[in-house]
């Protein structure tokens, strides 16, 4: 398993989850967990995904997701999960 975190932030609107999930589906990326909150009107979605079966490189995936974000007017980032484990778990 190659876990990564997809974070989506921006103004809440219809279809954010749909668009991002569709892109992940098209890139054969499995969603393991989703959490979503609205903080001060700012939409924040965190998705933990598995890149194991994704055929493309990390950079290509990141580029596509960022483009999807641009189209719907939110920021979409993807980061390897190791970063968060390193910082918050001993």
């Amino acid at each position, binding site marked *: 398993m190659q876990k990564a*975190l997809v*974070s989506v932030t921006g103004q809440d609107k219809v279809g954010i989850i749909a668009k991002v999930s569709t892109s992940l589906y098209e890139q054969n990326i499995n969603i393991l967990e989703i*959490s979503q*909150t609205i903080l001060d009107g700012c939409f*924040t979605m*965190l998705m933990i995904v598995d890149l194991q079966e994704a055929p493309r490189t*990390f*950079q290509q995936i*990141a580029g596509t997701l960022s483009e999807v974000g641009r189209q719907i007017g939110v920021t979409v*980032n*993807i*980061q*390897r*999960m*190791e*970063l*968060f*484990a*390193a*910082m*918050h*778990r001993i």
Partner: protein
Amino acid sequence: MIEANEILQTIHMIQEQHFDIRTITMGINLLDCRKNTDTETAECAYEKITRLARNLVRVGCDLESELGVPIVNKRLSVTPVSMISGANPAAIARALDQAAGDVGVNLIGGYGALMHKGSTIAEDILLESMPEVFSTTNRLCGSVNVASTRSGINMDAVRRLGAIIKEIALRTADAESFGCAKLVVFANAVEDNPFMAGAFHGVGEPECVVNVGVSGPGVVQRALEAVRGEPFDVVAETIKRTAFKITRVGELVAQEAGKRLGVPFGIVDLSLAPTPARGDSVAYILKEMGLEMAGAPGTTAALAMLNDMVKKGGVMASSHVGGLSGAFIPVSEDIGMIEAAAANCLTIEKLEAMTCVCSVGLDMIAIPGDTPANTIAGIIADEAAIGVVNNKTTAVRIIPAVGKKAGDTVNFGGLFGFAPIMKVNTFNNDAFIQRGGRIPAPLHSLRN
């Protein structure tokens, strides 16, 4: 399982608090490149560097994108050149500069010498070549170790460096004397420092190694905002926890970079390295502790605690900590320090006191262009004495900006920032500096 608030904390550190990995520095041994002539040595060094470091920038960029943490600089350090050079070290200098450009790193360190006890013929020649080299190369940096706790202070080297720094300033006068920013004069130089301009690949190091320097003054400042008014016990604990988190990311990057480059991971340098960006300042951390500006009474105590807590938090987060580790206080590279110097709250004398407890020394300080060489040598000697007696690394990177006087400003651009010209005490010390010789190593018992 990692909680959502932890994930968001990390994202905020990167997006809003300027957290970054300051540098991945590959250290390369060049001792085996020493040939019959400097030209052949230069060719061999060029070949070795471009072979070993060809993937450094790509690996750095890959990690940056995968982790989402900026890795600001990719750099190289090599064996002090005076160990492989002869009559024409400038030939090697040009090869190193070229190699750095060709592999895409922004700086390469190691054009220097270890002469804390005395100098070799090659070291003398290399020292004399510095003004020409630092005014005609782009990426090359260097350092000279003039003192150590075990051998004392080489005052001949100190005197010569005062003059060399003046000469570099003159030769780069049309670029605000920027050449001087590429030369560091050390006492107790460390062999595995990844930060420039003082990085070099020490003789005790392996063939090739990857060292990582972390940063994050903005993250510490933000964490302290949450404990305003609390006693120092709480402040100390907060800094420690934050330093731990920052260093963990440095460790991850270092391990991963080493694996991908096929070279051993050396150390994580757990430094708080500021940039001129607002919100990425060590001086602002001191301000957050309750000082109006860096330089106000209490500054040395605040910095001492900050420096110690960064180390205490960081050591547990990494398998190998080294380099210069601590809080850097460069003037031109820290917006809070610039403001304090411009307001005359921060003087060179106060900075000198601060260097007794910070990670390195007098760094990126611009002084009037007409400062005599011996005055600069005197400043170097004072700083070296602090390092030698207190068994710590100290350094001087000082820029006598040609044509500028106290109160003017110099602008170096980018991460090197800008700086107000600081006033220097110019009472005469010629007879002191002209003595030359060596100040003996200090006693290590009867410590008072």
